[in-house]
């Protein structure tokens, strides 16, 4: 008798559990109805608010939802390599070219650019303000051993920073504790730099939309070597047959079209344009 009662109660408990499971399952089914693609992109495009501005326009026109996974460029390429995204939208030219050369992507197309900036404390202990020469500024920071925060996460910005140290002929990791690798995204790294009044290389988009600036300001900008090009790549459907080639191509074509390029140019924060479209015309 007791056993029967216990069984009855167990069955009821499972039924209550199933009632919780039900709605979650139904919600999963709903989102699956709409066609969508997955885009692996960088924290700079997501956190600057560009995608929030751009994607609804594309979705309204085509009915295709775009799901963005925003990570560092290195990880975004890895996600594409494993076939977990349909499109990769990042900013590290040589890594992108290698991605295509290895057959993970179909073709690398240039979309837009913005620039990196050297941000640092307003007191500017290394005296780099207004030099306009980012390599000299890096050398001055190393010489003064002023705190410098590095992304340290294999992102596009991290790769660009390492390239600048190379140009400056300095191995920052050899120099002691002034060089601090945070292994985090642009925003968290900026939070860290703001917290310890350090210098940091940032992309302009994230900086413009970043709110916790503390005592930091732009100190060096406008050097040609701070150019930051974004590229878009279709993940190779020959390698990953589940890639939604048609929808993904529609997205890439739209981003590169005059309409998509105009949409990128029209994104502004406090009157300042964040990204500058520079797609080449088809066949040009």
């Amino acid at each position, binding site marked *: 008798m007791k056993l029967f009662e216990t069984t009855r*109660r167990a069955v009821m408990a*499972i039924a209550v*559990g199933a009632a919780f*499971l039900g709605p*979650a399952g139904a919600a999963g089914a709903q989102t699956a109805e709409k066609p969508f693609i997955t885009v692996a992109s960088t924290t700079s495009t997501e956190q600057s608010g560009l995608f929030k501005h751009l994607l609804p326009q594309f979705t309204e026109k085509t009915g295709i939802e775009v*799901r963005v996974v925003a990570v560092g460029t290195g990880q975004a390429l890895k996600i594409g390599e494993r*076939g*977990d995204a349909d499109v990769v939208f990042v900013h590290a030219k040589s890594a992108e070219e290698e991605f295509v050369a290895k057959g993970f992507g179909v073709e690398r197309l240039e979309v837009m650019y913005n620039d990196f900036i050297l941000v640092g404390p307003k007191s500017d202990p290394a005296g780099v303000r207004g030099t306009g020469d980012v390599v000299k500024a890096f050398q001055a920071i190393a010489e003064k051993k002023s705190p410098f925060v590095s992304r340290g996460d294999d992102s596009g910005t991290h790769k660009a920073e390492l390239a600048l140290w190379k140009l400056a002929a300095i191995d920052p990791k050899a120099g002691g504790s002034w060089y601090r690798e945070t292994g985090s*995204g642009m925003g968290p790294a900026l*939070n860290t730099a703001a917290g310890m009044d350090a210098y940091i290389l940032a992309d302009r988009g994230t900086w413009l939309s970043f709110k916790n600036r503390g005592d930091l300001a732009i100190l060096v900008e406008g050097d040609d070597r701070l150019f930051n090009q974004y590229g878009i790549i279709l993940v190779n459907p020959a390698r990953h047959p589940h890639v939604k080639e048609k929808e993904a191509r529609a997205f890439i074509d739209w981003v590169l079209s005059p309409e998509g390029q105009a949409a990128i140019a029209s994104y502004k924060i406090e009157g300042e344009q964040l990204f500058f479209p520079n797609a080449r015309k088809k066949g040009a």
Partner: protein
Amino acid sequence: MHGFDEALAAAWRLIVTGDTALVEIATLSLKVSLTAVVCAALIGLPLGAALALARFPGRNALVVTINALMGLPPVVAGLLVYLLLSRAGPLGPYGLLFTPTAMIIAQTVLVTPIIAALTRQVVADLWQEYREQLTSLGASRLRAVPTLLWDARFSLVTAVLAGLGRAMAEVGAILVVGGNIAGVTRTMTTAIALETSKGDLPLALGLGIVLLVIVLAINAAAHLLGTTARRAAG
């Protein structure tokens, strides 16, 4: 401290305006974590009770392992599930990565050891107390499992709530397997991480306050139900 008043104001604004994005991510958080806890309870409760009663070689090693897994770092659980569900992984063809289902799986992995380990302790204590009675009634060890689970139900609510606390609070696992996609896999904790990244600390903390209120409400409801049920049970 500077910032707390702004955070409270942000939290208040989010709640009173019934911000639709907030409702969406809060609902998703609850769906994912509650479903994961239900799954974990369905596995963890019987598993814990069986571990308390059964005698087999390697049992102690298993108990220690499950106890240790209570401390499994969420990001590690996330990575394991990521590699399983990735297109290049064994379950790749199902295309589950970057979906709420993936987040439920990852949280179930995290929560099951907590519920199993706590259940084992509760049931083992109870078994010591009632062993003679139950065996004199002719119940075998395994047939005593449902009875003991039922008798321990009030203590086990705490085990399940501990699991829910873990699920609602973690960000490492769901960030990796969910991808924090706006409108699809963005939950309270991943949104907090994102707003922190954007340097919008008041909004991040405001979201944190909202999350705390939700978790508090769930625990209060469980407590109330428990007291009422205990009274009814005499």
